[in-house]
């Protein structure tokens, strides 16, 4: 717990970061930048878990482990997504979402 900073400050920062990620997911038309928006969203959720753990339940550590597993899953997700993006680029020669409408091999 940090002296002089309430839990709301952290929650406001993570909420704004979450919705910036959502906004980026909607306005971007490129697969890699959409993936980056998803990383922003996951990161803001991680901040929430850790802050709730530290301020409301400092004698337990569920939030810590939750965010640890979220980081692991985010790594797996990013690697598979980038493999798919590279494969799409190889087949279609660009990676804009408008062009990825056919699942032709």
């Amino acid at each position, binding site marked *: 717990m*940090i*002296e002089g900073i309430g839990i709301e400050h952290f929650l406001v*920062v993570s909420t704004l970061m*979450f919705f910036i990620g959502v*906004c980026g997911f909607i306005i971007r*038309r490129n697969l890699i930048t959409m993936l980056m928006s998803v990383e922003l969203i996951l990161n803001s959720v991680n901040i929430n878990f*850790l802050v709730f753990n530290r301020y409301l339940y400092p004698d337990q550590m569920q939030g810590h482990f939750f965010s640890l597993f979220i980081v692991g899953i985010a790594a797996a997700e990013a690697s598979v997504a980038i*493999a798919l993006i590279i494969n799409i680029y190889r087949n279609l020669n660009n990676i804009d979402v408008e062009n990825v409408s056919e699942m032709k091999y």
Partner: protein
Amino acid sequence: MSLSVFMFYLLSGIILTFSVLSITTRRILRAAVYLLFVLVATSGLYFMLKYEFMAAVQLTLYAGGIVVLIIFSILLTHHISHRFKRPETMNLLMGIGVAVVGSGVVLATILTHPFIASTSPVLPVDMSVIGNQLLSTGKNGYVLPFELISILLLAAMIAAIIVAKKDKNKNSEI
């Protein structure tokens, strides 16, 4: 204003500024670098919350691993001086609208809800506690998700290799 409060506002400012820049810049490599700044500042927040292990994981895995992966895939798929077109007005309005409405609802909920800070003693989260909890099968043990995530990571690794592999003899195989 004490130093930790100043640090908190500095890190929050970095996080919010570079998140916005990362989704609005028209050069994709800059977007990746701004994302890197956001992730490093987030790990600074974890250090302030005294979750040192989590901060180290954030630095090595996110800032060291995922951002490098993203930058490599950018270099493989884009020309370095590539610039995006401006987003369509409809998309822009939709995105900003969703963000404003959603964050308004969530912020209203957060700022009116009374959070009762706990006064129970703080459990130190050091390396030995984390290791014991992660591999314990007893109460509050996390061995099942630990094993599950190891299987998930193996599956993701094999899947990534197979999906991104170049098919050399595609025609002769079929």
